[in-house]
């Protein structure tokens, strides 16, 4: 296949990837979008194989390895519970990062096949590109592994900080740059290996000081990194599919991190420099002054909701923990049979990753036209009889509007306090992610339902 034809096919697959992301602008077109993505990938792989035109032993191995990897991937994809999406994404990112490192190593060891020169005499531009690709890939790999371990609970979620941390990171950064320069001058192999080793270390050091709960931002950031790594390798391999994809993925990750930080009203640096989760414990103990709360049970809740004309459901992280989405859906079905109007209100940072609640509700067959974003539903709380807050906390905390000292000050919140009565399903009075007390628990029109979200919801359904 001629270089020109090959380039055209890569362009086509780049365009198909654009269309894949474009499809996600609405649920109706999203499935078609995913399909475009698959075709784009098939084209890219197909033409690459054809362009090499080597159908001997190597080709058989290729198919075997594709099959092995593919089966593992397919197996994971089918088995993974929806609540484990955050760690799945982290895990997958680590693989992309490592793959980028491997490709860079291979290009370094055998530059002729990529037209980059000869071992010991690689073009400087290519050397810089592949060093960048390898370094970013390596950071993505170890960083994602740490994020995965923290999210999976295999490693403590609390930030690990030590003296001189930022200084060490800075020093390692400087060393990395020095290595690249030295490598370009001498083309010594051991320098390349050192570069990769140090990058692995940097990945670990960058992520350990960040609290487990900040991992979603980290994942997005690493997603963005993996994109830039791919683009770097794309420049090395002179492949426009990789360059286009890298740019797409790079911007996508950056924008999602931005959206999350904005949703939490924190600056990106505040998240990345870490150590935030540590404040949790201190503020937890301060605000406990034993104010009276109204404590209810499933029958009270069922009575209130049955007699309501409209109910708004506010799901949060606790719903994911309790896997309560199916129970919730059944409760809503019963309510609807009783003629109650029900809708769902999703805060942009409810749960632990962007769109987390939406996926869970979709899994429980909640039609997406009953699910509303904050801006679209926030005015409706004033006319609603009951707000059923299930495992959410921070996203309803009015302190975000009133107390400039609070860490969530300025974050937009769902105005559940405006509804006639508020039901809070959670297991205790303990705070949520931000580690601050929620004044709503002690209000006149709030009823606390202390229990696991799933159990409580099921009991309410029975009483209905």
């Amino acid at each position, binding site marked *: 296949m001629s270089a020109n034809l090959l380039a055209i096919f890569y362009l086509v697959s780049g365009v198909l990837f654009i269309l*894949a992301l474009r499809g*996600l602008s609405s649920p109706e077109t999203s499935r078609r979008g995913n399909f475009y993505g698959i075709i784009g990938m098939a084209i890219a792989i197909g033409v690459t194989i054809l362009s090499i035109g080597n159908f001997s032993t190597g080709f058989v191995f290729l198919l075997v390895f594709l099959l092995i990897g593919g089966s593992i*991937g397919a197996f994971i994809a089918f088995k993974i519970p929806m609540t484990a999406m955050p760690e799945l994404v982290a895990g*997958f990112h680590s693989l992309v990062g490592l793959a980028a490192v491997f490709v860079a190593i291979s290009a370094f060891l055998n530059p002729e096949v990529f037209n980059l020169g000869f071992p010991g005499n690689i073009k400087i531009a290519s050397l810089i590109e592949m060093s960048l690709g390898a370094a970013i890939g390596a950071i993505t790999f170890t960083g994602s592994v740490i994020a995965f371990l923290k999210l999976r609970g295999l490693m403590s979620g609390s930030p690990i900080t030590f003296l001189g941390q930022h200084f060490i990171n800075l020093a390692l950064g400087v060393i990395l740059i020095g290595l690249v320069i030295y490598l370009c001058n001498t083309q010594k192999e051991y320098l390349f290996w050192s570069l990769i080793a140090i990058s692995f270390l940097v990945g670990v050091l960058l992520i350990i000081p960040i609290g487990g709960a900040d991992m979603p931002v980290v994942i997005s950031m690493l997603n963005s990194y993996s994109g830039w790594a791919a683009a770097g390798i794309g420049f090395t391999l002179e492949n426009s599919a990789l360059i286009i994809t890298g740019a*797409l993925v790079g911007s996508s990750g950056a924008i999602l991190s931005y959206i999350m930080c904005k949703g939490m009203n924190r600056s990106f640096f505040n998240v990345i420099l870490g150590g935030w989760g540590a404040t949790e414990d201190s503020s937890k103990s301060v605000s406990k002054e034993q104010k009276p709360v109204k404590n209810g049970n499933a029958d009270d809740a069922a009575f209130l909701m049955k007699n309501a004309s409209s109910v708004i459901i506010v799901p949060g992280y606790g719903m994911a923990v309790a896997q309560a989405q199916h129970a919730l859906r059944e409760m809503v079905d019963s309510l609807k049979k009783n003629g109650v109007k029900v809708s769902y209100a999703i805060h942009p940072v409810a749960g632990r990753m962007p769109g987390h609640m939406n*996926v869970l509700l979709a899994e429980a067959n909640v039609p997406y036209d*009953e699910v509303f974003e904050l801006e679209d539903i926030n005015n409706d709380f004033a006319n609603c009889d009951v707000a059923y807050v299930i495992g959410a906390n921070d996203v309803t905390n009015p302190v975000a509007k009133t107390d400039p000292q609070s860490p969530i000050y300025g974050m937009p919140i769902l105005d559940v306090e405006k509804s006639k009565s508020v039901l809070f399903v959670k297991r205790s009075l303990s705070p949520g992610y931000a580690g601050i007390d929620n004044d709503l628990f002690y209000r006149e029109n709030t009823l606390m339902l202390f229990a696991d979200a799933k159990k409580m919801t099921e009991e309410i359904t029975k009483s209905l």
Partner: protein
Amino acid sequence: MEIDPFIFRLSIFILAIFVGYYVVWSVTPSLHTPLMSVTNAISSVIIVGAIVAALAGDNNKIFDTSNIFGFLAIILAAVNIFGGFLVTHRMLAMYKKKRKDK
């Protein structure tokens, strides 16, 4: 008066960043989780580099160090490709409009 192909690639890269910026902002927030998994899948297009690394070069020594790295990269990328697209598909299949429920 020939222009270095690098400049063209740079142009492509910059324009693709613009496209990425707009295309991602236009994704509806309720699909942000599938967005993360699908970007993951497509970033595995790095597999094209892995294939070249694994197959190209001398036919007789297919298990040269550099080829081995290529094959390893193929496995990793394949996990991502299949895993990423399938899990995205699984998620997207769940998003339904109100109809005769279930």
